[in-house]
């Protein structure tokens, strides 16, 4: 109802600056860059990310041999940053995939089965979304402990409703389409209809959500690490690096720049991709009409 009144930005107004091409091109090349860094982090890092050297403590940016400086233990920040890629991106990606799988299954299920299952799934999703996720994540991590999988599982399980809600709404629409109804008439089994006919229709939406959710999960992961409730304390995740930099804001202000900057880079990249894909599929949908 709100959308119909034009309260939220109405979709489908195309201006020059709104063309998806630029966003996708910039976002895509940045993603490629990030992907290469993540793949080659071992080769690119000059130092052991965990090995400190008391003689090179708190060296500033552009110190010879330490492009991004060193931290309070004399560890090379660039090397830690590079080794942070598999950690930070890995946790965020795992959490996103868990949320997507659980959310998609729940959303499809709710769309397929009317009655109490649908009510239950939708109500649970609403309840979880209404609650500040970080608060629950803090409590859960505090109990089950830090680490890659505890973090990925907690974030994934806590955020499935974001996928479920969208998948439910879209799947409900797709199930009304003629070709799906026809498949049903021909006696195709339920789960086959969902997988063969409904799931492909969800692909553009899921891709957009994947990009945005990935960004959200990266922020959530670094926030939890920042609060001391994320990755193991030694792990070179970007959130941990930021948490350490907090103690040295006055002494070593450069310590926060690298991890902060790389988080922003990844999040902006994912936002660009998400927006670009969203606009692209919208344009396509309009072209079909």
């Amino acid at each position, binding site marked *: 109802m709100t959308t119909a009144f*034009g*309260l*939220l930005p109405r979709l489908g107004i195309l201006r020059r600056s709104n063309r998806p091409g630029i966003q996708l091109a910039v976002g895509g090349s940045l993603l490629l860059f990030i992907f290469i860094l993540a793949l080659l982090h071992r080769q690119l890092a000059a130092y052991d990310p965990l090995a400190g050297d008391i003689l090179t403590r708190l060296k500033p940016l552009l110190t010879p041999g330490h492009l991004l400086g060193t931290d309070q233990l004399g560890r090379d920040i660039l090397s830690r940053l590079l080794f942070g890629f598999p950690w930070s991106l890995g946790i965020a990606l795992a959490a996103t995939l868990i949320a997507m799988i659980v959310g998609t299954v729940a959303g499809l299920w709710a769309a397929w089965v009317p009655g109490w299952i649908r009510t239950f799934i939708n109500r649970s999703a609403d309840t979880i979304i*209404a609650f500040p996720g970080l608060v629950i994540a803090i409590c859960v991590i505090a*109990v089950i402990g830090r680490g890659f999988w505890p973090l990925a599982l907690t974030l994934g399980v806590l955020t499935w409703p974001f996928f479920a809600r969208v998948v439910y709404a879209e799947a409900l629409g797709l199930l009304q389409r003629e070709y799906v109804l026809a498949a049903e008439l021909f006696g195709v089994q339920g789960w086959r209809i969902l997988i063969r006919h409904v799931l492909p229709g969800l692909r553009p939406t899921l891709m957009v959500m994947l990009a945005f959710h990935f960004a959200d999960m990266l922020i959530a992961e670094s926030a939890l690490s920042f*609060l001391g409730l994320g990755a193991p304390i030694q792990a070179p995740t970007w959130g941990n690096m930021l948490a350490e930099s907090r103690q040295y804001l006055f002494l070593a*202000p450069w310590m926060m720049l690298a991890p*902060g900057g790389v988080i922003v880079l990844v999040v902006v990249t994912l936002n660009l991709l998400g927006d670009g894909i969203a606009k692209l599929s919208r344009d396509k949908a309009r072209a079909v009409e």
Partner: protein
Amino acid sequence: MSFDARAVVRRIGVLAVFLLSVVTLLFFLLQLTGDPAEVMVGDSGTPEQLEQVRKQYGFDRPLAEQYVRYLVNLAQFDFGVSFANDQPAFSLVMDRVGPTLLLTFLSIIATLAIAVPLGAWLGARPDAPERIAGGIAVYIAQGVPGFVAGLLMIQLFAVHLRWLPSIGHEGVATWILPTLTLASFLAPKLTRVVAANVTEAMREDYIRTARASGAGPSGLLWRHALPNALLGATALVGAQFAFLISGAVITEVIFAWPGLGWLLVKATTTLDFPVIQAAVFVIAVLVFAVNTLTDVLFRFIDPRLRTKGI
């Protein structure tokens, strides 16, 4: 505005289910730790102490009985005493509600004060070069997590310029950085929504009508386009309150702000379960209350919805 008794009852029902699921989650979370008594006594505890704590808190009873007792206690706002300092957890938590609400309130004001004029300016003529540049800046700002923004602001205002204190909760000067930090969680997004809504509203037929009766550019923007654009913005702020509380937790930790979030994070490091349970419970009630309030407020602001019931 009509007041529908059934709608009120339904809301209370939703709240009850909501709270029950939260406290149940917390109860089983405590069980997940293995032996709660061990958590309470700590590593240094002797077997005798352990046994005593188990008896005292009823951890030796069957799980179902413990759960029922837990619920009965909660119904009387009895969360037990803090492991850390033996004070009642609920009153510890209630003392922290004020500062958190203050921080959230201030930051909502700051968010609106930044996002509404900026969004209106960006949205009024979206193709002007300086506005495209502004739009790109806001787009990047949207990718900056709030706690990174907070650290950057400490760097700038406390370390380099030495204008503002970076920590604490005494005096208005210490409020500024936390407020701006929490505002940075939502302001860029809200700016983009306001800008998009203003751009959208500027294309509407009623803007043409206003121009036809002589309204100038500023009147068009502030009196005709913005009121419509702000309806969407209100909805966004209301819907994002839970997110704002998450942000408040981080902000409070960064600035040692004595609110619910800081208390909660401290409590989790010692697994001080009574405090954790009380804090989460209070946050849940708070979020629910604000969501309900924004629903009502939204109906009040939008004249098209005003005629309908709650």
